[in-house]
């Protein structure tokens, strides 16, 4: 691609590369907590009351939202890194970046609203 600012794109790519690894370490730790607390403690039945009881702790919820943000970033950035190897034209890359960004924002909104509204059917109006 003539006239492309390689220095800028390589810097951005390097930053995404690094963030992919940093988020991986965060996810590794949080996923252990997620799996043990939700799936390996207890008899495996997942009920509304059990989940809502866990969500009473603000620290637990903060960890959940951090988990959501890092996992979404890591996953969608991973898709970006994979497709970058196969898509070389500017236009389809921009379309893909827009789709991934929108999907990320949508899931971030959905997940955060679950954490904030769970236990209050109809939404937090108090």
């Amino acid at each position, binding site marked *: 691609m003539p006239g492309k600012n390689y220095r800028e794109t390589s810097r951005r790519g390097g930053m995404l590369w690094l963030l992919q690894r940093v988020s991986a370490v965060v996810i590794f730790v949080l996923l252990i907590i997620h799996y043990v607390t939700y799936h390996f403690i207890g008899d495996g039945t997942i009920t509304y009351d059990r989940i809502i009881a866990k969500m009473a702790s603000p620290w637990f919820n903060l960890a959940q939202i951090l988990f959501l943000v890092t996992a979404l970033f890591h996953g*969608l950035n991973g898709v970006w890194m994979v497709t970058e190897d196969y898509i070389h034209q500017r236009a389809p890359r921009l379309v893909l970046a827009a789709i991934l960004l929108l999907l990320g924002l949508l899931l971030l909104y959905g*997940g955060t609203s679950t954490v904030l509204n769970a236990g209050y059917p109809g939404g937090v109006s108090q």
Partner: protein
Amino acid sequence: MYKPRKPYDLSYTHFVGSWAWLLHRLSGLALIFYLCLHVWVIHTLTLGPESFNKLMAFLTSPLFRILEAGLWGVILYHAFNGVRVIIVDFFGGSLAQKKLFFVLIAVAFLLWAAGSAVIIGHIH
């Protein structure tokens, strides 16, 4: 301009790393697909106990328990090959990458067996 012939290249004679790389990508794509479904499904928590418990009763049926054990395996592969990637990238582990692969995958396999026993044991 660079023209890739295949979406992957496993033609290296000692191809443990190439396979690890390809499986890492495929497992990663599977996991982000799962994460999207997971966030969407868990959103039923906001609809109250009836909808959530009904959905969970369906999603903890024996078929889904088996899929859950499979998911646990995909997660462990991605996580432990990811540990290898970080050791190679940041801690000078590139010369030991094949050995690291087999050791870490062995650990992942043991965790998969133990976790799957718990998950399958949850079938009532």
